[in-house]
């Protein structure tokens, strides 16, 4: 049996061709295979990462971006712990579709799901969406924000490691709050302190946090 302390489901969504599969491949296999065909339905990868000595297993669901697979991919939202919404910084339409994606997330995903906005393909020099615009959008919609390049392996590891760390902290504080409810009120402080420690995680790493609410 594999030993890991936490298991989290991470689902990648976003328009076709923004590089979801490449992000996953880069992270799980260290590869950047260009010219891959479009993903059909869903693809599924597993990688175990270690955060502060704790093994965290990430189940990464790579979904097809094309419209006709929507009813397949939607069915995976509910069980997701984190949703990575990806757009292509060199392609305005993929950014313009973000509200549609958010509506879908709102409709199908758990309200507690961790949402991360990712602008991919920073290696391209024909950028159409400035970092600030993406940041702004993420802030408005209560999401974390990160720009990546699957091709240059930029920020890809960080993206997934920070998700793992954040989800772990969330799971911890949830445990703490559950046990604090069962015990008396003085143990509340444990839950609170871990909560406030966690809130800084993304910002410590100099990466834009989308709003303060991360419970």
């Amino acid at each position: 049996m594999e030993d890991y302390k936490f298991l989290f489901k991470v689902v990648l969504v976003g328009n076709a061709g923004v590089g979801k599969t490449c992000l996953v491949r880069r992270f799980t296999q260290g590869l950047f295979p260009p010219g891959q065909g479009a993903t059909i339905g869903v693809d599924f990868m597993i990688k175990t990462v270690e955060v502060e000595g704790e093994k965290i297993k990430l189940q990464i669901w790579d979904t097809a971006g094309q419209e006709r697979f929507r009813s397949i991919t939607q069915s995976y939202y509910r069980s997701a712990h984190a949703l990575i919404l990806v757009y292509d910084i060199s392609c305005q339409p993929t950014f313009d579709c973000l509200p549609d994606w958010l509506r879908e997330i709102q409709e199908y995903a758990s309200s507690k799901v961790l949402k991360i906005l990712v602008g991919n393909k920073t290696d391209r020099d024909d950028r159409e969406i400035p970092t600030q615009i993406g940041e702004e959008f993420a802030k408005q919609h209560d999401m974390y924000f990160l720009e990546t390049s699957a091709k240059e392996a930029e920020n890809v590891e960080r993206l997934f490691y920070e998700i793992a760390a954040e989800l772990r902290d969330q799971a911890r504080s949830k445990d703490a709050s559950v046990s604090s409810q069962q015990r008396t009120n003085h143990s509340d402080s444990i839950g609170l302190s871990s909560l406030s420690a966690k809130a800084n995680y993304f910002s410590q790493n100099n990466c834009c946090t989308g709003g303060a609410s991360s419970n």
Partner: protein
Amino acid sequence: MEQTHVDSVTQNQQNKNNISKMINLSDIIGDVDISTICGIEEVLEILSSNEEEINRNLDVILSKQCDLDTKVSNLSRALTNVLKADTDSKKLLNQISHTSDLADSVSAKVRRLDQARSRASECQKRVHDLIDLQLCSQGVNTAIKEDDYEKGAGYVSRFLSMDKKMLQRTADEVQGNEDISSVASAVKNLEEGTVKLSELVNFKFDEAVKKDDLASVERFFKIFPLLGDHSNGIKKFSSYISSKLSTKSQKELRNSLELAKADKRTHLAFADTMTTLLENFAKVIEVNQPIVEACYGNGYLFQMLEVLQKECDLEVKNLILEFNKIRRINHRVNQINDYIKTGGSSTSSVQTLGHYRTSSGGGSVDKLNPKDIDAIIGEITIMHSRVELYFKFMRRRITNDLENCNLTEKETEKHLTKLENMFNECMLNRSMQEMLSTYLLFERYFMEESALKAIQLDAYDPGQLSSSMIDDVFFIIRKSIRRSITTQSMNGICAVINNAASCLEGDFVTALKGPLKQGYPSGYIDLAQAYNAIQSSIQQGKIQTNDIEQARNNFIVQLNNADMSTEYTETLWTSMESEIRAHFNQMSKLENNILESCLTELKSVKDSLKAVTDFGLQQLKSSAIKPRLNQWIDQFLTYNHHLTEEELASYEAGETFVQFLIVQIDSLLNQFKKSLSSRNYDALVSILAAEITTRMERVIKKSTFNRLGGLILDQEVRALGTYLTSATSWSIRDKMTRLTQIVTLLNLEKLSEFSEYFNPNDNQSDMPAWRITPSEIKQILTLRTDFRMEDIKRIKM
């Protein structure tokens, strides 16, 4: 041998020692005075005993002589053998090296011979080629003149099989000879003939196609490969077949509805048409594969499919257009989407998740009845499965054909990827993905709406533990998952499983939890509640007992439903998993992982249901058990626990506290025994036992006891324990341990007995470990008024 040798060496040494002993006479004489007879005699005695010993040793040595002799002779015999072996092996070595030399020279000769032979045969071939060249050259022209295309193509084929470079070299080598011109001219003549023939065949083929003359089409189709024009032949032939299939399928599509009506299969009309359509294509491949393989060789089937697939895509597209139109697919999709949108927003405050609607949600007049799409869903799954079958068939055929090609692994791989890419990118596949999407939307709508309806129409038969909705909901979900299996698409199945889990965790759990949240109406016991009930009944001008009864029933039934649902979920996912695995015996690793993960999701619904059950039981505890139980147990405080012998006798003669308590508890439990599922009932008894022990502990700590009071208490707690144990199949002894220990303390004859009972480190005895802390023990002992405080303080623990 070695061993005996060593033995003899040690013996020799012993002998030597003996000898040296014997020689050294002075040693023997030692201190003995040899001047006296006595001394001499003593020495003589020693000497003679030494002599005896020496004789004995000699005997031993001599007795071994024979043994040693045989060993020596054995050795010498072995030596001769070894020498012989040595010479033999030398001889063998010689022979082997000799043979190897011989073999080398032979193989060199063979190699030379082989070379010579191959040269000879090459030469022969060239001669044959030259001869044939002339023949072909002459033949091709006459054949063309005589319209004997097969024969002409045969000559061309022979010509094409010759090595052009070789011909050129032959022509160069025989330079000066008069034949040179004839070789060159023959080549030229044949090349011209090839072009001419090829044009003719092309023309004739087109003509045959125009005339729709199948025999001629096939005749010329077979000639193309002879002229080295394989690809062209395949293309032309496939296009011809495509056009034939096109007209055929158009007719079929037009007739599909009428035909279906005649067979009373209207609801499957398009599935049937799809089946015939795809079967037509499969048939073309099946029928023509032997011809193509015979005339063209392996590896050309793929080219054929490439052309046919385009036609197939087109025909399927038409079919689906028609299907969408007749079955009003788009209209229905829009209806569902509109409904989800309106329904989703109205209940979002109640639901943490997604789009769930209450049964009254939406309220749109245009609402789609899930039953209406039931048939369409079935039709779509069949259509989808047919396409999956079609792909499977084609993939198998083409792969087989490619594998027979004798290509390198890498090349085969390349072709196979090309095939997969073609499948992935073809319109047929895309159409099917769109169709699957429609299916999933419909299936989800069907499942959720039907489940909501089942919840709405929930009916409860008196005497039953659970109500109709759990059977109905699980039936619906199983139906949906089963139906998804018929699509043959793992993606589709997994999505439906996901949706099933959502449906159960959403609408279903909410429906179960609703009545449980309101609590169990306890009615008459709770004064405040009773007062409220009377108040409201006065206000509303009607008596509510019936409503309370109904609410109670509903509570119990939903609690049982929740409990049974955990079992149903277990059965659902295990049976679905085995059914899916039976259908897909060759799953890829990825498919297996995805399926596994989705099934785990379905499995985890059990946890939610378990939580609902626990929640319900807690509700039952706080509203039905706790208020009454506390009252009964508090009666304990009204009893006298300082009894004299006479009082004891009269107490035992009357109704004791424990008898009163057991009667009350029994009647309480009897209320639930029949109506609760056995697991829920056991859980209830367990909760009850826990409550009793904590409450008992409280009242005991509020009382004081004398010796007899403690004795009575001990008897009563035992009786209570026996009763509770008999009430359930679960073990509740553990729950009673603390109380039993408290009572044991209070039942001590003397304080000095305490040490016999208390042994915190003793794990061997049947007594469970002490659950009471030392300070608690002291506190409890003070409840016995006849124990002195100083004595209690002195107790060592």
